[in-house]
Structure formats: structure tokens, C-alpha cells
């Protein structure tokens, strides 16, 4: 068992927000998914106040050792999320972390207040880092703004608040420390790095959103550096992610100070990656103990 902000988890591997649609996966892989859910907790895709359609396609570009996405945070909005999605997630049998994003402190406040009312939710993750949406980035990259935001949100919920930091910052450790000062219970990182690709044979951007965010093995070593520097700078637990594809990758993040590890892009290649990585981790611990 792994303890995280007072929540008991079966193992330290969870999904990265936006990289696993549990309802779609159940539709595709059937109820066996719930019996053996690959992750120790389920993190929702980012939810905003109103519904969002997301960016026009194409939304994906395969990069060297990774993926660039410009999905653009499509989601049904907080009403539909709370009414339809959340009760369905609750049936997964693992703690639910709801990830929210607003463009202003007020929007964030409304989102946190509404989510706080729901017993199904174990923790709230604040996406202040999505590189596809200008507002989220601006708050998350500036320690002062970030501290102000978290300070304002802290009184609105007794649930653990996780701040998902932006990696597109000069000093991520300073941002993490600001989140901690504001009252965050945990920080998570890294989100995708701003990236771009041109259409083959053309001079225009390939992605409908213009730019996108890079994830996958290409960002693994950047994630490790940022998680190490953040974990050394704050006392609150850290959720590490970025390019994790194996137990060894997960172990490295734990070794530099993360409490949990999240898996995103690798689940696209292997839908059972969460379970596989948790098993590989358990085996490493067993070998080290022996």
C-alpha cells in the first residue's frame, strides 16, 4: 500500500490526466477492466466550467521518441462531468482525482467549490500548466501568481489540492515552493513541453492548434531533472510523470523523491501499461529487499 495525502493506494502508479478515458476503455475492453483496473487511482481529463470542443484536427504528430498533441482540453463542462462522468468513474473502485482548469481565480474557485461537494472525489488536481491554453500557463509559470491562486482556493475545499505545475517555466522548483506556501497538499509534474511540427512538404504548422505539447520518452530525462529539483525543494508529496514506460523509469522518479508516478503516453502504446509498470516496480522492490 502507498499512502498519499491520507489516501490509501494499492500501488504508486496512477494515470496522467487526459491520457486514459476510463469510460471509453470500459466500453472497449469490457468489465474486466474494472476488476483489474490498471491504475491505483483514476485522474480525470481536465474539466472546465463550460463545455469545450477542443482544437480542430489534426491533433497528433509523432515526434522523435514521443508524441505532440494539440487536443485542446475537450470536455463536457463541469455540469455534465459531475452529473454523468463522475458517478461512472466512482464505479472503477479506485480513488478519483478530478483535474480542473479555469482561466481566472474566480473560475478555478467555482470549479473547486463544486467538486469539493462530491464524496466520490478523493482529491482535486489544478491544471495550471496546459501549454495549449494561454491562461493556464501564465498562472503556473509565475510563482507569485501561483501562490495567490492556491491561497485563494485553499479555503474552498478540505480535499487534498494537487497543483499540476507547468514545465515551461524558468524555475519549476520556485513554482512548486509557491504552491506549497499557498497551501497545496501535493504538486504533480511534468505536463507536456511546448512543441511544434510543420506538415510534411509544407511551411504551415501541421497541428490544428498551431503548437502542441510534447510527451513520451523524449521528455523522460527532462521530467527526472524537474521532479528531482522540485522534490528537493518542497516537503509535500510529489507526483512524478513524463515519459514513464517501464518500472525502471518509474523507480527513477521515486528514487529522486516522488511519492507517486503517473503514466500517460505509454498507455497509448500499451493500455495495460499501468499494471505492467506497477508489477515491474513491485518486482524491483522485492529484489532490492532480498
Amino acid at each position: 500500500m502507498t499512502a498519499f495525502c491520507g489516501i490509501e493506494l494499492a500501488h504508486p502508479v496512477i494515470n496522467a490526466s487526459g491520457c486514459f478515458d476510463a469510460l471509453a476503455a470500459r466500453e472497449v475492453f469490457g468489465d474486466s477492466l474494472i476488476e483489474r483496473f490498471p491504475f491505483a487511482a483514476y485522474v480525470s481529463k481536465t474539466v472546465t466550467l463550460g463545455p469545450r470542443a477542443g482544437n480542430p484536427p489534426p491533433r497528433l504528430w509523432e515526434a522523435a521518441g514521443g508524441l505532440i498533441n494539440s487536443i485542446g482540453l475537450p470536455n463536457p463542462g463541469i455540469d455534465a462531468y459531475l452529473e454523468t462522468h463522475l458517478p461512472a468513474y466512482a464505479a472503477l473502485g479506485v480513488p478519483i482525482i478530478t483535474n480542473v482548469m479555469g482561466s481566472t481565480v474566480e473560475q478555478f474557485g467555482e470549479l473547486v467549490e463544486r467538486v469539493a461537494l462530491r464524496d466520490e472525489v478523493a482529491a482535486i488536481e489544478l491544471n495550471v500548466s496546459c501549454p495549449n491554453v494561454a491562461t493556464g500557463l501564465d498562472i503556473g509559470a509565475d510563482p507569485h501568481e501561483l501562490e495567490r491562486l492556491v491561497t485563494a482556493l485553499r479555503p474552498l475545499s478540505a480535499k487534498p489540492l494537487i497543483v499540476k505545475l507547468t514545465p515551461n517555466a524558468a524555475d519549476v522548483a520556485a513554482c512548486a515552493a509557491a504552491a506549497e506556501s499557498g497551501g497545496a497538499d501535493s504538486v504533480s509534474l511534468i505536463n507536456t513541453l511546448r512543441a511544434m511540427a510543420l506538415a510534411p512538404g509544407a511551411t504551415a504548422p501541421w497541428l490544428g492548434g498551431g503548437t502542441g505539447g510534447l510527451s513520451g520518452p523524449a521528455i523522460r530525462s527532462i521530467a527526472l531533472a524537474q521532479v528531482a529539483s522540485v522534490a528537493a525543494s518542497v516537503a509535500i508529496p510529489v507526483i512524478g510523470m513524463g515519459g514513464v514506460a517501464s518500472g525502471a523509469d518509474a523507480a527513477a522518479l521515486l528514487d529522486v523523491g516522488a511519492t507517486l508516478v503517473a503514466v500517460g503516453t505509454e498507455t497509448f502504446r500499451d493500455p495495460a501499461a499501468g499494471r505492467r509498470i506497477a508489477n515491474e516496480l513491485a518486482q524491483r522492490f522485492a529484489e532490492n529487499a532480498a
Partner: protein
Amino acid sequence: MVGRRALGAYVVLEVGDEAVAAAPGQFYMLAAVVGWGGGEGERPFLGRAISALFAGDGRVGFLLEDVGPGTGRLCSLAVGEELWLVGPLGRGFDAPPAEREALLVGGGVGIPPLAMFQEAWGGRALLGFRDARHAAGASLLKDAELATDDGSVGHAGYVTDLLERELRAAGEVCVYACGPPAMLETVRALTLAAGVPAWLALEAPMACGFGACFGCVVATHDGFKRVCLDGPVFEAAVLA
């Protein structure tokens, strides 16, 4: 992988799988276990979406054309090499309504869904190809009428010319189509104009194939839909 043969410009792969039956139009995500990625540009990284050509008795078949690093590697696989396989995925074609004749319209690597459709429910096939080498793929269906861009086999021109002719001949038909985007767009326009029901099996760049990434969307009158989850088969009338 248990079997491999060349078919004109294509390669047909046969892969051992725990034999879930796939519906016409369903697909799998495929990747080679060894030699996936690296080399120039370090691609492929993600799996590649490939339609089932047949499925059952512990085997799944695929029809491939080498158009890039992913399909290139899959085409180069030798018998005995291992594959990552996720599927069958997506919503395929439904059985055709009894009162209408099914017209199967497609071409290129779009023919596997049509071949499975014909095997299951019959239907008359109109197929288009670049040239004679590609037209060899038509042997996967029965009694297909052909068109080639270079006129080397069948009608010289587009397969949609053949469809236009059929739509003018006022029979009660419905259309099932799979092929390159431009072909499907023409099928959509023609059938809509003719008031004939049509179902299209679309392609889109995919990262996951099971609804996780929201990367493969297509615009419909009901907003963006995931091709891998809500499709790849869509009714022509719902597409925006």
C-alpha cells in the same frame, strides 16, 4: 506472425491471435516488437491502425501498403517475428437493410472492410486503384468492377464515376465505402445529393485506438467524434 504473402503492390499478413471475431470495418493497433522506431527521424513510435481483412480461428489478417516508416516496418516482417496487437477496435459496419442492395465502394488499403462485409452479407463491389499492380487487391472480393487512374484495368478514371452511374440507375441501393479521404468525400457528396444512405469507414491519425487520447476526431453535426471509438464507420449524413 504466422503468414505473409505479396499481393500486387500490397502485403497480406496473417497473425496469430486469441481469435476474437472482428466485424467488417474494425481495426487493430499494430507494432513490431523488434525494430519499431530508430533510424531516420526515429519513427515509428506509436502503433499503427490497420483494418482487419479476416478474423477467426485464431488468426487475423491484414492488408498493408508501405507508405511510411510504420507500414514499411510491418511490410518487412518475416514469419515468426512478433507483433504487439490491440483489438479488434472501433465500430464496424452494421448488416445492410434487407430492402436495399449494398454497393461496396472503395480502393487502395480501404478494401479489407469491404472484403469482410461482402463475406458476411454480400454486396456488389466497385473498386478503384492507382494502376494494375494495385488492382491486384481486387482479388480479395468477388466480382468487383474496377477503375484505375491509369486505365490499365477497367474504367479509366475514378471509382466514384462508377458510383455516379449506379446512383443514376434508379435502383434501391445503400453504399458502404472505405478508401482515401478524397474518395470518401466524393462518395459522401454523391450519396447525399442522391438521397441514398451511406456509411463511410474513415481514417485519422491515431495515437491509441481505444478512445484515450482524443487525437483522432472528425467533425460531425454533433461536434467532434473520435474515429477510433465512435467510428471508424460513420453514417455519411452525420459528418459535418
